[in-house]
């Protein structure tokens, strides 16, 4: 087991045993276990940097490095796109383990032979690595600490200033983590770096993570993400949640983000945004299923099938006439037992509960509990259907800590 810290600053000698400089960094190519490609040697006398490819290196060991050639015969290794520098980009940086539960720093790196090639095998994250770097590893008590190692494959580098480290693999990894775990990491990282993490996720995951965060951080993050990306992510959220976030932003910024979104989504959010959080209009969502009374049951079933991704929760189907006035409601049960060619008008319930968009949250809540409803229709002052308030949105507003 060779520690990278023991290698750093080692004297580098050529084949005539002349010291040509000190080892400054190591270049590896990124893969599951990165293979060492070259060493960076700094000749402090000549003020010259050699990048010596591994085929010119005779021996690489603790405190000593020897080369196969004389200094003047060395040729420089050409850095590849997939290469990174261990000291510059990995050592002392922050990493997360692939379970996404912990964030820590790279205290040291373990090198070893793997399939006949010197590779970076694991990362030291424990106290012993810190003492080793301070030259105190052999002190009593400290030498009893056991090294804490995570395999190179088992972690993700958070940021390193080298974009090639944000590989496809890293992104796949992050996207696999639970939104709540990612949200914890984002909180730990704060707005700017949290935004960098969120922007490496896909839009859907990013929206889920955003929904988990507290309001202040949510807004700060959206500001850091940039208009276009923010628009894309907000599109993936339910319109009422997106409207809540945009509501906390300065008006001008919110308008510009909405302008980045697909017109249809943007329109929905705009309708929601000018209501207060604690009135029906602010609580409602515009994601619900509405049909005209003359349609058939088969049509409704088809509609349920195609909207399965966009509208995850459906308790009632709302029936509206051509002026958007609500005329009835259809429960899922009625729908389930009806024949395909039945006309909706014949099976819908016509006593439908509605509230006005400016109705207060208490009023909405008492309606929902009094009549045992999962959701209630919200209408404007000329009785046109605007959206629906679901019971869980009311609960979330009333008991935010739950």
């Amino acid at each position, binding site marked *: 087991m060779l520690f990278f810290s023991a290698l750093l600053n080692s004297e580098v000698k050529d084949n005539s045993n002349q010291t040509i400089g000190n080892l400054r960094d190591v270049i590896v190519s990124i893969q599951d276990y990165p293979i060492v490609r070259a060493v960076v040697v700094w000749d402090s006398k000549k003020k010259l940097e050699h990048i010596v490819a591994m085929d010119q290196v005779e021996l690489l060991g603790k405190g000593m490095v020897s080369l196969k050639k004389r200094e003047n015969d060395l040729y420089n290794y050409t850095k590849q796109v997939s290469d990174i520098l261990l000291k510059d980009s990995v050592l002392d940086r922050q990493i997360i383990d692939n379970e996404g539960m912990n964030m820590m720093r790279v205290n040291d790196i373990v090198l070893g032979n793997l399939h006949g090639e010197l590779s970076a095998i694991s990362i030291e994250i424990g106290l012993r690595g810190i003492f080793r770097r301070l030259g105190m590893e052999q002190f009593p008590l400290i030498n009893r600490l056991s090294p804490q190692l995570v395999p190179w494959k088992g972690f993700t580098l958070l940021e390193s200033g080298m974009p090639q480290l944000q590989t496809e693999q890293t992104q796949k990894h992050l996207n696999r983590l639970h939104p709540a775990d990612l949200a914890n990491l984002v909180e730990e990282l704060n*707005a700017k770096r949290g935004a960098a993490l969120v922007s490496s996720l896909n839009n859907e995951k990013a929206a889920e993570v955003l929904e988990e965060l507290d309001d202040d951080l949510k807004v700060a993050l959206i*500001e850091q993400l940039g208009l276009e990306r923010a628009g894309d992510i907000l599109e993936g959220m339910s319109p009422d949640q997106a409207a809540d976030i945009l509501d906390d932003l*300065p008006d001008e910024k919110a308008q510009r983000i909405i302008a980045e979104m697909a017109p249809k989504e943007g329109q929905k959010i705009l309708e929601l945004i000018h209501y207060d959080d604690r009135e029906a209009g602010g609580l409602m969502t515009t994601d619900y299923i509405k049909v005209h009374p003359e349609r058939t049951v088969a049509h409704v079933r088809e509609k349920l099938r195609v909207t399965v991704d966009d509208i995850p929760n459906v308790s009632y189907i709302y029936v509206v006439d051509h002026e958007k006035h609500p005329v009835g409601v259809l429960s899922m049960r009625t729908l389930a037992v009806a024949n395909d060619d039945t006309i909706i008008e014949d099976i819908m319930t016509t006593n439908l509960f509605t509230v006005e968009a400016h109705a207060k949250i208490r009023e909405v809540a008492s309606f929902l509990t009094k009549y045992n409803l999962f959701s209630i229709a919200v209408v404007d002052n000329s009785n046109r259907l605007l959206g629906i308030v679901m019971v869980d949105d009311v609960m979330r507003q009333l008991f935010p800590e739950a």
Partner: protein
Amino acid sequence: MGFFKKFRWRYVLMFMAVIGPGIITANADNDGTGIVGYTLVGAKYGLNMLFALVVVTVILAVTQELGARIGVATGKGLGGVIREKFGLKLTMIALIAMLISNMGIIIADMGAIAEAMGLFGLSKYIVVPVFAILLWLVLYKGAFSRVEKVFLLSSALYVVYIITCFYAKPNWMPAIKALVTPSIQLDKDYINTLMVLIGTTVTIWGQFVIQSFVVDKGITAERYPYQKAEVFLGAFITDFVSFFIIVAAAATLFANHIPITTATQAAQALRPLAGEQAYILFALGLLNAGLLGVSVVTLSTAYAASEIFGVESKLDRKWNEAPAFYWIITLIIGISALLVLVPGMPLFQILIWSNNVNAVILPIILIYVYKIANDKKIMGTFKNGRVANIITMACIVLLIVASVFSLYANFS
């Protein structure tokens, strides 16, 4: 006209959105060591050091702005940036410097709590354990963000210094003239007092706190100009209050040749306003400042150390989720409380010495900050320009010269 009006409002709103970091950090700067420090400056040298106060205000503004800018550019705390740029060994030097300075200030602020309650006749052997446990609970339960607002609001208590100052009827013209009249004496006592003035105003922990604050707030690059203005305003407000503390002390303590070696004597500076009850006002102010100081500096130390070692550091985590973080908080509060409890501990002197220690160590951290601010890879477009570099360097050199002088004066 309508457009013009709207335009101006937009700026005002943008400014309101960035309020916090500069003003709050600066306000916390007037902790227990601050109140006693400025009182001492006024009591010993009257108006003589007001010019130095102006210079120190500039240094405060410059260094705080650097911290805020690094925060915006990196999105990281100072501890993390230092570790990533300088590697572990140099980071340890920064960490030790920070720990020495912060411990000094925390012990001093714990002492300030004891001194303040002492004015009410309460023994430190009762007061210190009680407040230490309370402070620990507040920090451990993560209630600090709520309590912080109370402390900051009550720091409006400093207004009494401004009022007192008018009651004491000082000669305003000499005071204002002193602001622009350079004056320096080269004796040990003067240098030490000057170091107190520097050390209580520009602090190592302040450097860490401003940066974390800006990072927490998630200030974007486009909002930075407003943040910068806010940081400058914060530096100005702090020293605006300091000005009145010094003038009040000058008009009372200095004018009547009252030396200041105890809290009771320091309270005399408030006499023109509060008469014989001056010590009540002073005691309340000192207690508040001490509590604020212990909590802010303890938290900042724990955050910085956690960030350097890369361990979890969130206030709302459980003990076993962030053990190192909570151990640091517990140890700091425990050790400082125990030291203050040692019989015969010269609490009032410690308040003054801690400022000296901070002033001597300060340039070390500022050199790290300077190097970071000049690293294109870290700072990008926020890199220090040439003018900023000259000003920063001038500040650092001034601080080093003062430190060397004070070490020379004290140890030769």
